[in-house]
């Protein structure tokens, strides 16, 4: 049993080492020409920007470089579980060449890419090559010791294996010994490959600039959140003051009058009683609406899934709801998601002219994904002051994002993503 296990683990290790060597070799074959080409084209293209030609070539070249870098990010994650975040600034879809070039050149990630290409063709190249060297080069040493030295030595002058000059059997054996020593280093191959990707991460990963950008975004969303909640509190205060509170005061006054009238004019007292009761009903209705606007009861009682289902039931449009949630997200996230869906649905009902709506709530890997699709006329945009912009701001507070796909003629699909882990 134990032997088998050991054999198994040896087998796995040997396979791991071999794999690392093969991957390292493959990397060296691609990286050197790739990095050289990318860097040269990139530099030339950027240098040609003042002339004008660069404006058109730069976006192409840099997109290629990004793809090359992204490919390496994928390899790093797949081969050595080294995660390198990608942090390119978004480029507007319909931007013309000059705008694209401008955005790309202003992005610190672009310059980081170019710096990385230089590292990749030197230190990166070596760290990728070493695993292959430690695994494959010893094989040559052993072959030399086994007799390959004869034809090699006869070929011409001296044959060098590493620093050993191979001329006869003893020196060939020395070469073999060197091969064995090198082979003993082979188990380092996977670690060397990891080191290669760590090096890539060190150069390619986000630096101070990104952190500053992140702080800026957080400050902005926090200000939005504070503004929104302050406005919300003002609205609630006003609604209470003008609505329920006023009605209760009126009711109290009516009751006072009724007390006075009870003996003198029972008929009038009765009329006022009916009025007081109506006031209490109205006050309750207003309080109920207010509560629904702050924290809908179904959301409190059942959570997001059923709250959205209840929302769908109230729509005048046939709506299908699919829910796949693992437990309940945090209350603030739940609430933000609910109101976002509510706003998007309101928009769809008001403007899309759709007669069917599909809502899909889905939670995977700490991400809450919601899509609202309708079969309406499309053409929805996130413009300043629109409901969708409001939703985007609301989600921003939670690092959530909103995407709208709405070609003219429809259909419209609004997708929201909120981290909830």
């Amino acid at each position, binding site marked *: 049993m134990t032997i088998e296990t050991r054999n198994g683990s040896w087998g796995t290790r040997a396979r791991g080492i071999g794999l690392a060597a093969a991957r390292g070799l493959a990397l060296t074959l691609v990286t050197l020409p790739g990095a050289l080409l990318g860097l040269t084209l990139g530099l030339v293209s950027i240098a040609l920007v003042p002339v004008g030609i660069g404006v058109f070539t730069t976006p192409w070249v840099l997109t290629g470089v990004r793809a090359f870098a992204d490919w390496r990010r994928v390899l790093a994650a797949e081969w050595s579980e080294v995660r390198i975040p990608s942090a390119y600034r978004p480029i507007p879809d319909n931007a013309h060449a000059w705008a694209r070039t401008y955005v790309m050149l202003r992005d610190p990630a672009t310059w980081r890419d170019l710096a990385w290409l230089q590292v990749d063709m030197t230190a990166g190249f070596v760290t990728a090559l070493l695993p292959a060297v430690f695994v494959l080069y010893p094989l040559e040493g052993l072959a030399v010791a086994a007799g390959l030295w004869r034809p090699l030595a006869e070929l011409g002058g001296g044959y060098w294996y590493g620093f050993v000059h191979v001329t006869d059997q003893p020196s060939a054996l020395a070469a073999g010994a060197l091969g064995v020593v090198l082979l003993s280093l082979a188990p380092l191959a996977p670690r060397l490959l990891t080191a290669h990707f760590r090096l890539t991460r060190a150069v390619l990963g986000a630096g101070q600039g990104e952190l500053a950008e992140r702080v800026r975004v957080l400050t902005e969303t926090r200000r939005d959140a504070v503004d929104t909640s302050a406005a919300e509190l003002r609205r609630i205060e006003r609604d209470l003051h003008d609505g329920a509170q006023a009605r209760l005061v009126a009711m109290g006054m009516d009751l006072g009058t009724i007390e006075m009238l009870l003996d003198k004019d029972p008929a009038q007292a009765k009329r006022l009683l009916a009025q007081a009761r109506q006031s209490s009903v109205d006050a309750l209705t207003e309080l109920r609406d207010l509560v*629904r606007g702050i924290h809908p*009861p179904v959301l409190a009682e059942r959570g997001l899934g059923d709250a959205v289902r209840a929302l769908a*039931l*109230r729509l*005048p*449009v*046939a709506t299908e709801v699919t829910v796949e949630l693992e437990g309940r997200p945090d209350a603030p996230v739940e609430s933000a998601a609910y109101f976002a869906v509510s706003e998007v649905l309101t928009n769809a009902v008001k403007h899309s002219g759709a*007669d069917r709506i599909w809502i899909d709530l889905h939670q995977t890997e700490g991400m809450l994904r919601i899509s609202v699709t309708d079969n309406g006329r499309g053409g929805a945009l996130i413009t300043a002051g629109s409901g969708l912009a409001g939703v985007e701001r609301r989600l921003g507070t939670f690092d959530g994002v909103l995407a709208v796909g709405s070609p003219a003629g429809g259909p419209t699909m609004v997708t929201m993503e909120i981290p909830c882990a």
Partner: protein
Amino acid sequence: MRVVLAEDLFLLRDGLVRLLDAHDFEIAAAVESGPELARALAELEPDVAVVDVRLPPTHTDEGLQCALNARRDRPGLPVLVLSQHVEQLYARELLADGTGGVGYLLKDRVFDAEQFVDAVRRVAAGGTAMDPQVIQQLLTRRAAGDLPLARITPREREVLELMAQGRSNAAIAAKLVVTERAIAKHTANIFTKLGLEVSDDDNRRVLAVLAYLDQGR
């Protein structure tokens, strides 16, 4: 008639006890939490339960869940659910088993004592008492998309709303100040337009209407 009452706010519970007492109901138990309610429903076998949706300890829909569970153990157990707000979702869950004897009303409805007591009696007798708000939402929704309801006249719509709340022809006639025969004619028309079989049974009538309103979702 023996009632089990569940309401966590003391003032409201006290008021309900007095109201039901004044109308010759026997209060078998007046409890304030979900577990107590579950126990009371299982042990006391009341004729009707009047239950608040939101109860301790969870303060979510504990009351509703208790009522639904009790009805699973004892099918047809009459339950009148009260809530600060009405949701179609809950109304559907209550009506889902199709056995009748359910009610779902806004708490405000107790302001009109006579109507409220009438609703409790109707539910206890195996009928239904749905809040007008639920019915209105259902009708608004259906009217927007479906042809059959669009063909119904405003008067018939009024009758349909009252019918869906669980009222008998006599009660609808009294409410709309017309003869019972006129209502009978309206209901016959409504059933024809909705393609439903005519039935004298109030409960089946309401369930048929709700089932119709439910289909095509």
